[in-house]
Structures are given as structure tokens and as C-alpha cells.
């Protein structure tokens, strides 16, 4: 039944957008973090999406019949490699010899806009699932 795999497609979209939103929130939370386990200031992270077939018990038969790309998945998490922002704070424990502290290069507005986008896309996937659920329900009602 193709409708049940369509539910998995919607779910994969929700999972991917949630993963992206988590990274964006992490960026906002660490906007002032100067210490990380890897050393140096925190670096901005972002998700890279890739279309991928959804996993379903019956997928093997149907995916060969209907060659749709299907769902989406987070292929990679990229870390921003641009130079950190240097602020003059001589009293800071992480200051270098010249009194400059390296801060993460994070633009809060950019992350907020992406976060709204992720939230909207998440909602669009929920609408898709609701519409498909309605179709499945109507098919079940045929038997009544």
C-alpha cells in the first residue's frame, strides 16, 4: 500500500527539519561560547539535506516498482570554518597575549530566520501526514 509509505515520507521530513532546528538552537545557545572540547570558540553548525528512500517493511517491493526518491535525510552536518570574531577583553580568562578573545561568528538574525523556515517546513510535513491519514481512513471506511 503506497499510502502507508507516504506517511513515512512525511515523517522523514519532520525528522530532518527537527534535526536542523536542533542545530540552529545550538548555534543560538552557543553564540557567546569561547571554550569547546575541541579547543577555541564554538563554530556554527548547519545541516545538509539529501533525498533518500524511506524505510518500510514492504518498501523493497514497492520502491522498485515506483522509482520515487521518497523521503529526506540529514546527509551531513557542516561546521563553519571562517575566522572567529575577535573582541578586545583584556580581563577575560580566554584572552590571548594581546588581550583579544575569539568569539563565535554567529549572526543571530540569520539563525532565527532559518529557524522560522525549519518550523514552517515541519508544519507543512504535518499537513501532508494529516491529508494522507484522512485518505487511509476513507479507504478503511469502505469496508464498513
Amino acid at each position, binding site marked *: 500500500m*503506497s499510502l502507508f509509505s*507516504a506517511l513515512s*515520507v512525511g515523517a522523514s521530513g519532520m525528522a530532518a*527539519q527537527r534535526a536542523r532546528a536542533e542545530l540552529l538552537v545550538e548555534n543560538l545557545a552557543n553564540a557567546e561560547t569561547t571554550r569547546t572540547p575541541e579547543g577555541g570558540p564554538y563554530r556554527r553548525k548547519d545541516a545538509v539535506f539529501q533525498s533518500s528512500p524511506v524505510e518500510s517493511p514492504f518498501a523493497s517491493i514497492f520502491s522498485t516498482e*515506483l522509482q*520515487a526518491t*521518497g523521503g529526506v535525510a540529514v546527509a551531513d552536518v557542516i561546521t563553519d570554518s571562517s575566522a572567529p570574531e575577535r573582541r578586545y577583553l583584556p580581563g577575560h580568562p580566554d584572552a590571548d597575549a594581546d588581550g583579544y578573545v575569539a568569539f563565535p561568528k554567529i549572526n543571530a538574525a540569520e539563525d532565527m530566520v532559518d529557524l522560522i523556515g525549519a518550523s514552517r517546513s515541519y508544519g507543512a510535513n504535518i499537513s501532508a*501526514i494529516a491529508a494522507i491519514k484522512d*485518505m487511509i481512513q476513507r479507504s478503511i471506511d469502505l469496508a464498513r
Partner: protein
Amino acid sequence: MLQRVTGQLERYMDLLSARQKLVASNIANADTPGYQTQDIDFQAEFRSAAGGPPRVQATGGLPVKNDGNNVSLDREARLLSENALRFQLASQLMKGQIRQVRSAIQEGKG
């Protein structure tokens, strides 16, 4: 007579579910770089005598974003509700056909 109508309805509902899956796929991939909107030629598939899975093709003529993605959420939202409503109509008609058979069986018993 019943066979012909229910057969057509079945094919119609099959195509609607296949199309709805592609719409869900397009919405899920709305932020995937380089993704192209997928769809089926509904009219041609419904008219063609050969059954089986419909042919999936990329939809052209949509504005392409900077990352090479051409998914239009407005278009997908329209198709999403359109497919759901068409399916609702088809399932109501199918229900009517089934009711006719059931009443024929009931009348035959008495």
C-alpha cells in the same frame, strides 16, 4: 456494469495515492539542494489502458531557487488538498457501488 465502474474507481484511487506520495515527497524535500519536483501525468495515466505503476517525471516550468531546488510549497499544498478531496469523492462513489451489491444480496435472501 459494476465491474467496469469499480475497476475505474480503483484505478483512479490508486493513481491518487501514488500522486499523494509524490506530493509528500516534494514537501519533505522542500529544503533539499538540487531537488526537482516530481509528479505524474494524471490524465495520460488514467486514460492509458495499461495498468501498473505510473511513470514519475520531473515537473518543469517552476521557478528554481538559488540552491537548484524548484519545489513550490503553494503548488504542493494545493495538490495535497485536491488529491484528498478527489479521493474522498471516489471513496463515496465506491461506497455507493458496494451498498448496491450488498442490498442485492440482502434482497435475494428474503
